[in-house]
């Protein structure tokens, strides 16, 4: 738990529950973080509700269908070097996204250490891993579409599978793609010394929050859609 925090005006506020009361009631800024960070958190909260609605909708149609649900373990298997490996593509995608989350965390750390070159390089690496993830997702979509998966039906079982799959992974892929662009823009600014002149690297941490959230959503999709 955080210790005593002193605000811009020098007064100190208590930690814990007492701190919640004083933060909310003292006629001052409630969250002692940069406004961009608070806003990003609130955006991510709203995004949480969107993805939960998708996953809840998926749960609902999966419970209510009388046709057997397709077996994701089989559908997402690949034959590599003559060996049949279940779910391997999704496992690799998961690892790529976790790797990118780690490089992003490092970028934030180096940003606060004012290490311009390392921050920019690690952010570009993160964006690179993100682009790799999207490319593998494009491959996955192509494979499924060629095999006959459609939003209204598929050869393996309950027709709701297709609509859930394209909706949920599509929306997540869109978030990853947007994140790749976002990170590239911020990395470019880092590289040109924009945040050194501004005197603060908080934008890197805010971009990091978005990127970690994209990874977080994948954790839930991986568990609930692919493994369930």
């Amino acid at each position, binding site marked *: 738990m955080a210790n005593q925090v002193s605000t811009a005006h020098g007064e100190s506020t208590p930690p*814990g529950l007492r701190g919640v009361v004083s933060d909310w009631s003292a006629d001052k800024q409630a969250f002692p973080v940069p406004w961009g960070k608070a806003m990003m958190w609130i955006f991510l909260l709203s995004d949480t509700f969107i993805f939960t609605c998708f996953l809840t909708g998926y*749960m*609902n149609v999966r419970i*209510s269908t009388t046709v057997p649900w397709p077996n994701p373990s089989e559908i997402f298997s690949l034959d590599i070097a003559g060996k049949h490996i279940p779910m391997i593509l999704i496992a690799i995608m998961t*690892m790529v996204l*976790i790797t990118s989350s780690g490089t992003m*965390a490092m970028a934030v750390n180096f940003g606060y250490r004012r290490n311009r070159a390392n921050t920019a390089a690690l952010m570009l690496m993160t964006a690179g891993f993100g682009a790799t993830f999207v490319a593998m997702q494009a491959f996955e979509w192509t494979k499924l579409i060629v095999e006959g998966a459609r939003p209204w039906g598929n050869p393996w079982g309950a027709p709701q599978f297709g609509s859930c799959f394209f909706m949920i992974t599509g929306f997540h892929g869109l978030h990853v793609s947007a994140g790749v662009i976002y990170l590239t823009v911020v990395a470019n600014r880092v590289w040109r010394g924009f945040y050194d002149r501004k005197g603060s690297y908080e934008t890197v941490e805010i971009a990091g929050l978005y990127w*970690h959230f994209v990874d977080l959503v994948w954790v839930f999709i*991986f568990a609930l859609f692919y493994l369930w």
Partner: protein
Amino acid sequence: MDQVAVPEHAVAEPAAAEPHAEGQQHPIRVYLVIWALLFVFSTFSYLVDYFHFHGALRWALIILFMLLKAGCIVAIFMHMAWERLALKFAILVPPVFLLILIGLMAVEGDYTFLTRLTSFLR
């Protein structure tokens, strides 16, 4: 933009307490440990599928690893562990209400399933 003092990390080791440390600064080791843990948990959840676990054990393991990974990401990578309680409450409490939606939709899905069985599958 006036400079707002950021919470000093009480949890982190003193190694991070460099003079004039700015923003969320923690030892790199913390990130590396969490990073490694995420790989381990992901591998475990993949192995649940690979070894064809079934039934309650499968669901329990999947949910367990999912929540462990989510916790690591939110607490450490997103720095929630070091934020003030007011921000934690504002961001983490609203999603709890989503459990009501999930519960209602599970009941509704069950009901729809039973209705389909009795009325549409003759």
